[in-house]
């Protein structure tokens, strides 16, 4: 592979470094390039826009959600991921704000180095926030695995997932920390599940804080100018 063997050692109970770049694309209403460690995805939203008659709903907007893999056509795996994102978004989206319209979300995978499900969900949330689509709440998704030694590894790198016994993806909302999504794979004890859940829950706070600071930075960068303009006016 083209990558150096071990990029940097991240502690097992810490998230990899998160970065995001807002509106890298010009054609959509909001887009974000989001990475967690070396996993990179781009999400773009459009909406509210005109909806086809067959999808029209008079009391809410129709949500379209597509996930595109890096190579090849979307397969079952990608469809499942897509469905997971859609399910979570449907819970979070304030769809009655724009009836008879469509909200469209596209996610493009650029590099999958572990926790792609969680990354796709987080980038979807950021894209919605920056595109100004109305949400009931924001949400954060965290991926965690239990390896063969029984250790919990939060937000694993691809190399670490090779030795997984069980993997979990949780999504929490920002209001009361309710669970929006649980995906598990492999065998585990219910006590382990509870441990992982609380581990992920605490990590989700970090992600939500990341949303807040990124958006705040994005606004500051551009609105310092506005305040100065205000001064000019007075």
């Amino acid at each position: 592979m083209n990558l150096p063997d071990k990029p940097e050692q991240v502690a097992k109970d810490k998230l990899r470094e998160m970065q995001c770049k807002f509106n890298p694309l010009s054609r959509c209403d909001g887009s974000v390039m989001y990475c967690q460690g070396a996993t990179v995805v781009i999400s773009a939203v459009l909406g509210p826009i005109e909806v086809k008659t067959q999808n029209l709903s008079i009391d809410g907007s129709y949500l379209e959600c597509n996930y595109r893999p890096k190579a090849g056509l979307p397969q079952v795996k990608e469809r499942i991921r897509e469905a997971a994102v859609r399910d979570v978004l449907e819970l979070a989206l304030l769809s009655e704000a724009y009836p008879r319209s469509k909200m469209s979300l596209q996610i493009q995978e650029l590099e999958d180095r572990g926790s792609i499900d969680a990354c796709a969900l987080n980038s979807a949330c950021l894209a919605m926030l920056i595109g100004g689509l109305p949400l009931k709440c924001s949400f954060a998704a965290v991926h965690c695995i239990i390896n063969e030694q029984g250790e919990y590894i939060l937000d694993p790198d691809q190399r670490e997932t090779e030795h997984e016994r069980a993997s979990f993806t949780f999504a929490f909302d920002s209001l009361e920390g309710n669970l929006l999504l649980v995906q598990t794979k492999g065998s585990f004890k219910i006590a382990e599940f509870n441990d992982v859940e609380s581990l992920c829950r605490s990590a989700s706070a970090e992600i939500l804080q990341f949303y807040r600071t990124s958006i705040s930075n994005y606004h500051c960068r551009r609105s310092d100018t506005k305040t100065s303009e205000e001064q000019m006016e007075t």
Partner: protein
Amino acid sequence: MFMNTGFFEPGKTKTERKFIQQAVKQSQRLDGRKSGESRDVQLTFGGEYGSVVVSLGDTKVMAQVTCDMGTPTTSRPNEGKLQLYVTLAGVSYLDSVQKTHDKRSLTLNSLLERTFRTSRCVDLESLCVASELHVWCIRVDVNVLNHDGNLYDASTVAVLAALMHFRRPDVTFTDGELRTYTEKERDMIPLLFLHYPVSVTYCIYTSNFQPFVDPTLLEENTADSTIILSFNSYQELCTLNAGGTVPTDVRTIMQCARSAANRCKAMVTFVRKALDQDEQQCLEGTKKNTGMLGLMENSSQKLSFKTLMKGDQKQQQYKTEDMDLEVEAKPNPKLEADEGENADNVENVESDQPAQEEELPMDDSGWLPQEPEPTIDPTKQSPGKPKRKRNKGNKKKQ
């Protein structure tokens, strides 16, 4: 009937069309480039082999190469397969506007097919493991991320760079048993190339027969004709795609061909350099950000045409004039308009000349015209350039 209001396409209103036509008449471009000046190209290689993102201004295209064992076709039993798939859907939101984009996707698809498959740039015979039984199938997925004009060039550069970056695993076939080696067992093998093609796109307007290289979306949508030429690094023509409503004369096409051939050559050199640099960084482990993370950082870190080809200028003297256009750092729009005017003056002077030369015999000496008149070129950027190229061409021919 009136679907797709969600999308805003520049260049669809009369106002814009009229404005661009007028601007073209005065040889001005909105972003301050000269007619022969391209936007900067940046490459970002992914963590896997055969994965690259090309940015051409705001246009972004991702290409990913994957390989698979398969059976060959009966007509070519000892050749591997090369398949190209273009996706306009996804984050670029290009699939939803039916009519025009259908055309766009068809043109792009056929351009890539002709440039890479029909021109036989990859040595497919080397991809054969066992005749009639096992061959490698190389699949290239082109994902358009953002469209701001000139998808064609961005896509061809992306496909070429991805193919050149790609490594396939080694395979042996003994006693009817196929064995694929992992990377640890044996080194991965790069693809073999017969030649390296890339395309260059020009837009032509009715108000001025001068071609404009590397159009933005606004320019592309308002253009009357688009000419796409693919050349390989030996300056051989691989694809010519000319469409639209302007009757284009031979001279314009020749002029395009001449500068396209040089541009393509420079582009291939650039891709090579970028690959070398990327590989070196990997070996040394100095690569700061891995894979596509490179897209997040500031442009100074990227493998960009302008920075990489700067040094090239000194080594390859014959190209100096040509490179001057490329190397210029992107000036801010204010200054650009300024330069645009200078270019305007130069071009106005020159465009007076072809009027006297109307009856030149058609050149049939080959794709790279050998005739000495520099005046047949109404738009060349500097008088010295074509001469040097012609010399170069002569050397090649002999």
